[in-house]
């Protein structure tokens, strides 16, 4: 797998990064996959995120950036109802996924997560063999035909196949951190979701493993849509087509919550943001 050679574009900002992004088509020609309206995410009586309205497009990489505590993880976990596992959590507003509101209580979170997969901050392979880490989900979800083939394809897509093909029976925990995270990605894409959510997938990894994961998002976005939370602006600039900047707002009585400040093409966010807070953040004057 070779990196496509592209003219590197130097961004005229405080941070100079190389990008592999292709020019974005105009937004009205993109297909919406999520349509989020006025979303509040609330733990008990405390709002973690308030009033998020944005749409996410198909076959793009969408990055969520912002200072820690701005609710970016909470937000991304709303997109596949992962927060349902936390007692006392609830949402207001709506998240339409291909037209259906997935926040509705009549929607089964199991079906949501089946279609919208997730990769977590810390690599969390199951205490099973490498092969079974990928095959388990396939078996449980009834995708038992051509199991070997599916496992190989997922591991290949996750750029892990060459490293593990001779030891598929070895434990998933025997791999290095970066390999474990790619195994988790293989596990997530093996079941062919529409969207893959990534919650700071590279925060615990070394630069080489990070590069492999960024490359793989780039290579796979024609098949999947990615939403990635990252605290690393360079990473967002490298991989994302669209970037959303979240920040912390404060109210009376010491209340703090996260909100969406600005959402636009990545290039715009990093070169010519419309909001002062975004500019302060991307140029390193804040947070």
């Amino acid at each position, binding site marked *: 797998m070779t990196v496509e050679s592209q003219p590197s574009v130097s961004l005229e900002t405080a941070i100079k990064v190389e990008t592999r992004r292709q020019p974005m088509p105009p937004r009205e020609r993109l297909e919406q996959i999520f349509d989020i309206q006025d979303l509040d995410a609330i733990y008990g009586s405390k709002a973690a995120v308030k009033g998020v309205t944005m749409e996410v497009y198909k076959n793009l990489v969408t990055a969520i950036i912002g200072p820690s505590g701005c609710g970016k993880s909470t937000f991304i976990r709303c997109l596949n109802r992962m927060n349902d596992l936390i007692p006392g959590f609830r949402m207001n507003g709506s998240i339409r996924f291909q037209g*259906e509101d*997935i926040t509705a209580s*009549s929607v089964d979170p199991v*079906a949501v997560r*089946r279609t919208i997969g997730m990769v977590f901050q810390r690599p969390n392979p199951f205490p099973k063999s490498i092969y079974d880490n990928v095959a388990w989900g396939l078996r449980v979800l009834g995708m038992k035909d051509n199991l070997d083939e599916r496992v190989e394809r997922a591991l290949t897509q996750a750029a892990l196949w060459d490293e593990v093909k001779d030891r598929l029976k070895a434990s998933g925990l025997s791999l290095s951190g970066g390999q474990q995270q790619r195994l988790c990605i293989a596990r997530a894409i093996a079941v062919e979701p529409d969207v893959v959510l990534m919650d700071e997938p590279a925060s615990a990894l070394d630069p080489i493993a990070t590069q492999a994961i960024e490359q793989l998002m780039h290579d796979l976005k024609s098949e999947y849509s990615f939403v990635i939370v990252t605290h690393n602006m360079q990473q967002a600039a490298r991989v994302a087509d669209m970037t959303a900047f979240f920040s912390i707002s404060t109210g009376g009585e010491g209340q703090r919550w996260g909100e969406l400040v600005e959402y636009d093409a990545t290039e715009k966010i990093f070169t010519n943001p419309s909001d002062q807070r975004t500019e302060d953040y991307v140029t390193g004057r804040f947070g």
Partner: protein
Amino acid sequence: MSAQPSALMARSHGLRRRRAVNRGMEWMAWLAALIAVAILGVVVWSVARRGASELNLNLLTKSPVPFAPPNVTQGLANAFAGTLVIVGLATAMALPIGILVALYLNEFAPPSIKNGVSLTLDVLNGIPAVVIGIFVFGLLVVGHGQSGMAGAFALAVLMLPLVSRSTMEVLALVPNSLREASLGLGVPRWRTTLSIVLPQTLGGIVTGTVLAVARVAGETAPLLFTSSIVANATSWNPGHALQTVPVAIFELSESPDPADHARAWAAALVLLLFIMFASLGARWLATRTRRKLGAAR
């Protein structure tokens, strides 16, 4: 369920069946928990309902009369006195040794000894009470005859691992900074242990002791061989075999006479009430100690 969004359902083959299995399993788990709680409820209620009618002062003050005519009021005074004596003696034996063992293991022993001895304590805790009874029978009773002392010794063997383990648990919670502060002042190790560490763990030790007492107060098997061939008169002398509450319940439960059953239920109720209050109190004390030591950390 046709209301399911199509985009989500497109890939969820067999989801309805899987959801049904999941629901079924969740119901089974609820049911299992319900069964456990129901068993407790039924046992406690049976004892309370049958025991309440015979529960009066006579039970504690009157002695049993063998082959008594129905109009004679009987009690189990000998059993309550015996249990007090035997459990008290057992505690007096097990408590200091248990605490010393725990202090030694936690404060002084090298890790290999600590691990070895605590494994031994846990294994000792798992040995059936009836085997302990036979062991003490062979050690103290053969050739000397049964006695309250032998019974107390058997119960003390059962108590020892309980007291030691619970004391070790609290000792582990005492912050090292406390020990270091005292040692740093030049206070010798044994003084530090005695006057700084030990007072911190008092609540925990009391909890462990109460739980251990509650556990052995209901033990029957070790007493059958050590203190069960008894007189009906109340005696406080541990040199003789003493009747105890559990042994009395055991014997009365196998009697064909309903009046005996009634007294067995009443004695069981007293025992149960004592054990439940002791465990609840200990539990309350434990959370308090834990909170106090947790805050000091």
